[in-house]
């Protein structure tokens, strides 16, 4: 028997670490890396709440499976955009990719 609170606290801490990565990284790939941690923390939360309940309703597990699919799609498109930008600009540093702002 593991206290339910421990799972929630690990997930909260992991989410915050991911947020820190998103806020401080210079390269777009580093930001994507932090995003993966945030998605994974949400996944831990979904599964912990589902497991703590009666497990009769499958919604927690179903949403977690959907998050897996969305994370895979997100990283595929995100990295394709980064490589496409790298090809034309020769950089992956987000501060230097500001053409839409100017």
């Amino acid at each position, binding site marked *: 028997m593991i206290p339910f*609170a421990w799972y929630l606290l690990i997930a*909260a801490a992991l989410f915050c670490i991911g947020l820190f990565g998103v806020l401080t990284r*210079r390269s777009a790939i580093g930001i994507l890396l932090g995003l993966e941690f945030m998605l994974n923390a949400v996944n831990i939360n979904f599964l912990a709440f589902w497991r703590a309940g009666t497990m009769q309703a*499958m919604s927690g*597990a*179903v949403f977690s499976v959907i998050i897996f699919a969305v994370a895979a799609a997100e990283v595929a498109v995100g990295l394709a955009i980064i490589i496409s930008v*790298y090809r034309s600009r020769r950089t992956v540093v987000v501060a230097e990719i500001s053409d839409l702002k100017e």
Partner: protein
Amino acid sequence: MPLNLLYAVFIFNAIVILGSAICSVTARNLIHAALWMVLSFFSIAILFVFMGIGFFAVIQITIYIGAIAVLILFAIMLTRRSMQEQEDKRLKNVWVALLAVGGVLTVLVMTLRQIPIFGESISTTQVDEMVPALGKALTEPAQYGLLFELASVLLLAALIGAIYLAFDRKKAEGEEK
């Protein structure tokens, strides 16, 4: 397994998860960051085993480590030249980020403490009988069948979008001529 040993293993695993995640977001070299991320994801799979849902531990390893981490490693290697000039530069606005993260963490913990089942425990017994139920729930039109179809359309769109974006149009035209 005696309870004290179980707690010790769980806490060790939790330290590995959070420690490798911190190393991953602060590592200067992006390749090191990706490898720390793999360690963290593997420990999260062990966390799922602790919850008794080994099926999700397998999904975690195949999708997050097998697909996502490898894809990120590929992207890092393809764009390496750009980052090597940047490597000596430190992370930007660390203090603002720490402040924001501290705020989010406090709010999260305060909110989590309000949950009525916060003090309960989760059993570590494996519940493999839920896998067929999950499969049925995902394909039954009355339950989550629509969500399942939407996810497959999303994956198809991501596939086509990734090919379209990464396709080098100028080079392909040049080769045709």
